[in-house]
């Protein structure tokens, strides 16, 4: 388990409390702690109330110095009781507050007023995976958010909760449809492979595989296939730590190259058994529509297009202009198709409590979310989380068990209507007839709402369970083992019923079809570890040794059925006249490692951290399976030096640096084998066998070298706290699908590429405590990231298959484009720079303008304000970037166009921004339009500032004992400032539903 901090043997008491408090605060190590308990003959009950000057303070840890076995935690009203001897010294500690140590001196009532301590954040224990480390003594680069930030957001995906809150972590929502995905990059794209850049996710010590579980035939609603990450329930999370540099990630060896996301779920706390119930409800709408032509502008464009093409008789199929459709109709299709309001409902309940030795937590959530599409679709998510911690009377034996089970049930249209809503002619016919049935307007159009009966349905059941057993075999020597198990079961279907077709086609259910995807993934992990810590005079040494055995099985079954006697039997594959297994696979992944860490702390000023790992993975061929990774991290707490110790303005100062290597084995299973795969398709009674891939057994580990230097400084008692980090990651021996020409039979080859990619950047965070008074508190957190991706070295690039994809010294995801120069005044078509001056625009010679579409910088500003019972928290997210305009083919055809296309070239001498309209017959214009989409002309500034999140809460002043009631208002994506005209500026693939603007209100009861 990750939250246990292994202190000196005598401070065992602390880590009992830490079990319950992943955010717990530990006082400065008291060196006089008694190693053995003394018998205390005269015990008596003491009690009191703890406040923070304004209100009662629940959750404060009360302990007795030197007695590991006694302790208490204040309740919701700040009250506590404790058994103690008259001469005991009582310690009150709470994260964010100064620790108070008071001798009891025989008193039986002890009321305490605690004072906020900005410096205390330095004392927070940070989860670093196999070990935890005090914030001030951390040598690696770790970003962190906690439940308090996650709970303010009405989101269901864990990545959504992290968006805009962490330096160096870029997160983009790819679709606003519930159950859809997010794209995350920690410190940029390391691997040239687009699918090999996901970080490693670890939930309570158990690796959580995020390889997609969807299938492109079923998950057609989303821009990318279904990711399992939606299964994680943000409400169950206590903290998320993102490990970034070599010092933090090298202990994860081959899996650490893209960073590590550590998720710690909530723990039970000792004290009174409490119940917490929260219910919220809200609405969501699309953030931003695109500005399109209205009917008048559209029809003018169409008529002009025919006139430009010298077509005088409108063709039969030009229903929009030839009089078939009403030319006075206007429908805002965006409003019709994606302009609805989604309903959000969420209920959570938490039961927790326990004694000093045993704590438990049981929580449960249920969430529903409808969509903005014009029909009844719903996403349901529910789950339960259970945690139990136990330690023996002598604290030598400890046991932790956590398990989370989440279910998702998603029912969505099979196709996202966003693209249709933008391209459909504005004078297209009504959606419904007077009788309420879909209108097909005599077969002159394909009513887009027909897809509302084609459904994408998915069910995901996900279990993540872990247990940690530890035993202190000798003083300061702890042997422990982590056992983890995951079980993911996912089924997906996409139907294509005959009712999606015009009824006049007379298609029956014998033309209905369905795709099934059943993907199951089970894994187990065992990680025995040995931990030793020792104080040697003024220095401390810690040693961790461990091993990993991991096994993962993924089974995938893709099926297809068609021809049903009735559409109501569509989900029954047995009723299909044709049922086929398209793919049936069982992939095994085995992984083994040996890791270690040596930490040396000299005088609390100089810190050295050595980590290493030797990894073996079944994803590589014989002889290539093993590799070794390692890192060194160092930190100098210069503020503790004598010459700065008494400094009045500098309260904390640390310099740290790290260097090391990590790897990446996200290449899929069995890639080194020379095999044929069954296609399941019969021909002449033989089952088809196809070559699985081009055979290359000689690929090995990708190496990612990470270098980082950072300064952390706190001023004025840490009321102003600044960190600045510079990093440089270099990936070499890249394992990629090297693009191949089609003449090889395949498009890619799995191989190591002799190229080096560098991700370098600066990350800044600034925390300021602007006001800290009795009634009013205001804290601001800023994070800002400048990142640069660069291809450093690629021998033979000019003659390689990547010659038209990469440029030395430029980012990996540059685009080589034609250089747009304006409209040809003679022909009225887009023109481009003829770089090689051969009189024609040709590929590749004229398509050489490299453009960087990476964000130049991004970040977030969070403000937390509290005034008496009121709390306000808001986050602005900002991104500086360029993106493509949204285009809908060439202007003039029977599709609507962005409003800006109205300014088109019509005749000689026109000074227009857009080219001549064509119905498709003007080959020069069609070609120019296509080139324009591959030119610099298509790019536009898509920077934005977004009010990502706002949360307002009010504690009702209640008189009932032990009860708390809070009213909560939350908003997500409420305001977006951007000069980008074509919808929302946050997307990876254009034409999918933008993120939603969500407003919710709720109430939370604690008793």
């Amino acid at each position, binding site marked *: 388990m990750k939250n246990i901090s292994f202190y000196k043997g005598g401070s065992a008491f602390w880590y009992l409390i830490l079990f319950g408090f992943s955010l717990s605060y530990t006082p400065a190590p008291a060196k006089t702690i008694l190693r053995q308990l003394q018998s205390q003959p005269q015990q008596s009950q003491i009690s009191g109330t703890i406040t923070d000057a304004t209100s009662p303070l629940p959750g404060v840890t009360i302990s007795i110095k030197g007695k590991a076995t006694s302790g208490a935690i204040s309740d919701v009203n700040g009250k506590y009781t404790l058994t103690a001897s008259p001469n005991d010294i009582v310690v009150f500690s709470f994260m964010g507050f100064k620790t108070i140590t008071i001798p009891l001196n025989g008193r039986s009532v002890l009321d305490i007023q605690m004072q906020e301590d900005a410096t205390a954040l330095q004392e927070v224990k940070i989860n670093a995976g196999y070990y935890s480390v005090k914030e001030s003594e951390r040598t690696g680069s770790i970003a962190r958010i906690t439940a308090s930030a996650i709970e303010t957001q009405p989101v269901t995906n864990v990545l959504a909760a992290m968006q805009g809150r962490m330096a160096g972590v870029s997160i983009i929502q790819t679709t606003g449809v519930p159950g859809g995905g997010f794209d995350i990059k920690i410190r940029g794209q390391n691997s040239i492979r687009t699918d090999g850049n996901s970080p490693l996710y670890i939930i309570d010590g158990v690796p959580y595989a995020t390889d997609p579980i969807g299938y492109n035939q079923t998950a057609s609603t989303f821009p990318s296939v279904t990711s399992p990450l939606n299964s994680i329930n943000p409400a169950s999370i206590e903290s998320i730590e993102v490990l970034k540099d070599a010092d933090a990630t090298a202990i994860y060896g081959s899996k650490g190259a893209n960073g590590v996301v550590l998720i710690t779920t909530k723990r039970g706390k000792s004290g009174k058994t409490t119940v917490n119930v929260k219910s919220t409800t809200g609405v969501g709408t699309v953030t931003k529509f695109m500005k399109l032509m209205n009917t008048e502008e559209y029809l003018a464009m169409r008529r002009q297009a025919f006139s430009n093409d010298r077509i005088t008789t409108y063709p039969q199929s030009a229903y929009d202009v030839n009089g078939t459709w009403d030319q006075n109709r206007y429908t805002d299709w965006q409003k019709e198709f994606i302009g609805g309001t989604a309903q959000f409902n969420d209920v959570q309940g938490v039961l927790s409590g326990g004694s000093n030795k045993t704590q438990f937590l049981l929580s449960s959530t249920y969430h529903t979310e409808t969509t903005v599409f014009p029909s009844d679709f719903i996403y349901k998510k529910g789950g339960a989380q259970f945690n139990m911690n136990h330690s023996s009377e002598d604290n030598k034996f400890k046991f932790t068990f956590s398990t989370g089970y989440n279910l998702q049930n998603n029912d969505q249209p099979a196709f996202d209507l966003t693209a249709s809503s933008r391209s459909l002619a504005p004078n297209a016919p009504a959606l419904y007839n007077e009788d309420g049935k879909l209108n097909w307007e005599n077969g002159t159009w394909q009513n887009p709402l027909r897809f509302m009966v084609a459904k994408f349905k998915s069910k995901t059941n996900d279990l993540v369970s872990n247990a940690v057993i530890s035993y202190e075999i*000798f003083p300061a020597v702890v042997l422990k083992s982590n056992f983890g198990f995951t079980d993911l079961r996912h089924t997906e279907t996409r139907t294509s019923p005959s009712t999606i077709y015009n009824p006049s086609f007379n298609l029956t259910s014998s033309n209905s079809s369905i795709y099934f995807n059943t993907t199951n993934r089970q894994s187990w992990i065992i990680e025995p570890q040995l931990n030793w810590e020792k104080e040697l005079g003024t220095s401390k040494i810690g040693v961790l040794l461990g091993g990993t055995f991991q096994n993962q099985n993924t089974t995938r079954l893709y099926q297809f059925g068609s021809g049903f006697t009735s559409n109501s039997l569509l989900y029954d594959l047995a009723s299909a006249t044709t049922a086929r297994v398209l793919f049936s696979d069982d992939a095994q992944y085995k992984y083994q490692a040996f890791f270690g860490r040596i930490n040396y702390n000299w005088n609390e000023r100089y810190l050295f951290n050595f980590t290493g790992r030797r990894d073996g993975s079944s994803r590589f061929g014989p002889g290539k399976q093993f590799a070794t990774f390692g890192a060194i991290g160092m930190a100098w707490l210069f503020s503790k030096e004598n010459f700065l110790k008494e400094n009045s303005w500098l309260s904390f100062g640390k310099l740290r640096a790290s260097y090391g290597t990590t790897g990446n084995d996200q290449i899929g299973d069995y890639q080194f084998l020379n095999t044929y795969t069954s296609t399941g398709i019969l021909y002449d009674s033989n089952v088809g066998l196809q070559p699985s891939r081009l055979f290359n057994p000689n690929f090995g580990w990708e190496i990612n070298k990470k270098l980082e230097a950072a300064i952390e400084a706190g001023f004025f008692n840490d009321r102003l706290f600044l960190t600045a980090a510079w990093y440089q990651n270099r990936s070499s021996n890249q394992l990629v699908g090297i693009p191949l020409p089609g003449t090889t039979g395949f498009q890619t080859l799995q191989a190591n590429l002799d190229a080096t990619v560098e991700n370098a950047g600066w990350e800044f965070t600034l925390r300021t405590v602007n006001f800290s008074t009795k009634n009013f508190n205001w804290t601001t957190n800023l994070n800002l990231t400048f990142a640069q991706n660069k291809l450093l070295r690629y021998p033979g690039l000019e003659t390689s298959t990547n010659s038209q994809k990469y440029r030395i010294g430029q980012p990996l995801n540059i685009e080589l484009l034609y250089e747009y120069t304006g409209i040809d005044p003679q022909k009225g078509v887009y023109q481009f720079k003829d770089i090689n001056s051969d009189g024609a625009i040709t590929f590749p010679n004229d398509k050489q303008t490299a453009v960087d579409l990476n964000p130049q910088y991004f970040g977030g500003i969070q403000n937390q304000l509290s005034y008496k019972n009121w709390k306000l928290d808001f986050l602005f997210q900002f991104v500086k970037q360029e993106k493509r305009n949204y285009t*809908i083919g060439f202007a003039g055809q029977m599709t609507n166009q962005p409003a800006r296309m109205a300014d088109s070239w019509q005749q000689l001498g026109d000074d227009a921004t857009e080219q001549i309209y064509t119905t498709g017959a003007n080959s020069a214009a069609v070609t120019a339009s296509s080139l324009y989409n591959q030119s610099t002309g298509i790019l536009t500034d898509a920077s934005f500032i977004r009010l990502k999140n706002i949360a307002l809460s009010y504690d009702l002043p209640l008189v009932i004992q032990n009860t708390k009631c809070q009213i909560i208002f939350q908003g997500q994506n409420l305001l977006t400032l951007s000069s980008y005209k074509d919808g929302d500026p946050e997307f990876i693939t254009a034409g999918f539903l933008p993120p939603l603007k969500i407003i919710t209100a709720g109430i939370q009861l604690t008793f």
Partner: protein
Amino acid sequence: MKTIKLTPTSKHRNWLVFPVALVLLCITSCDSFVEVELPKSQLTTVTVFDEYATAEGALTDVYSKIRDQGLLTGTSAGLSYQLANYTDEFTCYSAPGGPALPFYFNTLLPANTSISSYWNSSYNQIFSANAVMEGVQKSAKLSVKQKEQLTGEALFIRALLHFYLTNLYGEIPYILTTDYQSNTTVKKNTVNEVYTQVISDLDTAINLLSQQYDGPERIRPNQFVAKSLLARVYLYDGAWAEAANASSAVLNATNFYFLENAISTVFLKNSKEAIWQLQPATAGKNTDEAASFIFLSGPPTMVALSDNLINSFTSSDLRKSNWTKAVSKGSDIWHHPYKYKAFNPTAASVEYSIVFRLSEQYLIRAEARAQQGDLIGAKEDLNKIRKRAGLNETTAVTQPEILNAVLQERRWELFTEYGHRFFDLKRFGKIDSVLSATKAGWNSTDVLFPLPQNELSVNPNLRPQNNGY
């Protein structure tokens, strides 16, 4: 930086056993732990060619692929459909953005996905054919007869696909091996070189293949299938005598093939005029052609036969009445191809897609004979086709007249079959004059497709791009 020494004191020596044991545990169990077994859906290449059934599976999968994707599929992605749009066979009613429109408007661009998928799927199928040849050659367990059968079929596939590719893209690389290193930087072969290799592959295949079909159906190429292709290759190459010889060899195999008397039975499964058919993917399924061409009510939402083609038929032509079908709404009337009639699945499949059929061989020989001056023989062959279609004997007399009559007859006989119209117009040198009259977007450089942009990007040896793109 300081070096830290971890010298254990005597007090600690005993517990050092644990980490040491842990290290030993990991190291000793390492190698075996990360070994995994083959997934159940995969076989090693060696195993595949150890057994005839699996080696056949590796080969027949190419036929499935040819049927389902790429050039010869009967779906709306295949040449039958798209070259009908590209020439004067179809009028396209597709919604904007549809993949048929760039074909219909003759505005194909190098980045067009259909263009790259024709290219990639063909070379993928060629790879599989080459892999079968190489696997068979290395196999120690297959018999000589089995090896000959598999190699012969694989050579036929390789020749067939390269033949189509060169007629669409012009100069293309001829791929003879599975070695990706040489195939990555491969250079283009001239059209002549491609033809030479196609003919050589077909000659070898003819030697290896038997006359009998492998099984009761006509779904696996035999010697006559290879000869049928060879006849077409020679015809396209202007080698008239060889073309006539090769087609004669097929036409003379009367115990296998003869023209169906009834025009309605030509496209049925096991039609006597079928030389090579593709078996549908599942029992009861019929052709993709029927599914992609037929529409049940007007107006059409995808394609219909062009007025130009429909109006060119003589009213008594049985092919018009039987191989096309009219759909009307009010006063509007449209036609769709109706060679393949089974739109829905049937208890047992009734129609298979026919890639090579006997009518074409008659027309090949008619043209080859006419070119060689054998006008009587030419007319004899041509009239066989006309007669079956319910037409009178041709009135053509002179050589140019007969050749024109053959071209016209090919249009009526072979419409919407694998792009014959496009290749015929090209061969006859009439493509510009015919198509620019009916197609506003036609340019003379449209006789070749653009080379896929991505291919030029990854293999500079394929540059330059074809003219006009």
